[in-house]
């Protein structure tokens, strides 16, 4: 039995949306105090729609795969929808994660929320 589902391995081996958006207007970086994984999310928002999203991740297979899946799930979505993304939904979309790896998928949810908050703060300023 493999550690991860085929979907996790696919997103881990061929992560979607990896990299940096130079003119991002929302950036969020979160770390997992428990295991040390760190995720950085870059958003390009136009008319409250996520036009583009990229990520950088320092972490395990499940952290990288959930970053990749989460970015796929919010790309093209309105901010209000993206705010509703849960780590559970990310894990489900990946055909599940081992129990002790669930905390790694929390990072993706938190990184997106943090990037959207950053976008909103910038808009106010």
């Amino acid at each position, binding site marked *: 039995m493999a550690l991860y589902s085929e979907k996790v391995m696919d997103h*881990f081996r061929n992560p979607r949306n990896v990299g940096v958006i130079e003119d991002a207007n929302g950036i969020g970086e979160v770390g997992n105090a428990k295991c040390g994984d760190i995720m950085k999310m870059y958003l390009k928002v136009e008319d409250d729609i996520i036009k583009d999203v990229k990520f950088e991740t320092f972490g*395990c297979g499940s952290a990288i795969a959930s970053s990749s899946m989460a970015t796929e799930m919010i790309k093209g979505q309105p901010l209000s929808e993206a705010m509703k993304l849960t780590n559970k939904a990310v894990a489900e979309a990946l055909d599940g994660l081992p129990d*002790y790896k669930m905390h790694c998928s929390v990072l993706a949810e938190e990184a997106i929320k943090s990037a959207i908050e950053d976008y909103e703060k910038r808009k106010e300023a």
Partner: protein
Amino acid sequence: MIYADNAATTKMSEAAVNTMVSVMTENYGNPSSLYTFGQRAREILEKAREDIALAIGATPKEIYFTSGGSESDNQAIRSAAEIGRLKGKKHIISTAFEHHAVLHTLEKLEKEGFEVTLLPVHENGLVVTSELEAAIREDTCLVTVMYANNEIGTIQPIKEIGKICREKNVLFHTDAVQAMGHIPVNVVTDDVDMLSASAHKFHGPKGVGFLYVKKGIRLTNIIEGGAQERGKRAGTENVAGIAAAAVALKEAVSKLSVYGETVTKKRDRLIAGLSEIPHSALNGDKDLRLPGNVNFCFEGIEGESLLLLLDDKGIQASSGSACTSGSLDPSHVLLAIGRVHDVAHGSLRLTIDESTSDEDVEYIIKSVKETVEYLRSFSPVWRNLVEGKAKFIL
């Protein structure tokens, strides 16, 4: 496939497999049965005991077969603690980077009123004997220091520790699970009172180990029941496994010097090659380490993703990363040698043996270099380091 995780377990030698199969099919009797067929199994068992005793400089009566390294460690420490308790001595000395079979047993003893001193192992992963000597007290009943560490491979000054313990009249146990069959071990010249070993680390079967206990030291049972192992370890003996363990150890010991020389050369080439990766560091002393052990930290990456990608390239290795542990904590061994969490997260252990070819070594170096570079290319930690927003540690 390049199997570079021999510290986790080893492939059984052909001779060991053959021995095991032949005992299981032809001599499957119970050594406790009095008829000839049972007594033939007893002969095999006792021959294995003799061979193992001979390989480590012990006498056959000083060898007790167990289910492996963990059980041997548990029984050795429990026994020494019991001897201490009867004399009112309840202080034990060990090190911060022992295997959990030792550390968790010591934690239990602490709850039972024992006091445990864990010696530091410093940046090079070695116990300083003067610090050990200074830690010994009137009420010290046991010193337990591993022969060689399972993660970073550092070889402890066992002879010197043995001498100190002898002079101070304190029992000395060593967990030699990683050393046995890889470097010379002799219970007499090393001055050890108790020693643990496990067959699956020296090309024998899993679930078989032994405990050497010097004559005159009273063992406490962990497993109660029948009178096997002179009443000190109940349960029908794993005759086939034990016979195979003896064959494997004899084989390993007979080629020890050639093994040491050739594997050390490959190890040093691996260390030199991986040292070319910027912001990396070898864990543990460069020379006082097991012939096949290479352990590195690479800054800015995480170990599990490195392992998964190396697996895709056909290389099996291991890591002390928090994400691989299942416990969310990075390796206690790497923390004990002063690696901070971030850096310990990016560790890689390669444990090679004589079957690793020179081409394998070059392929490993190339693959690790590529993979570390790839993972760094989208690591926010690496970006911060490169952009000067954080300071490089390595």
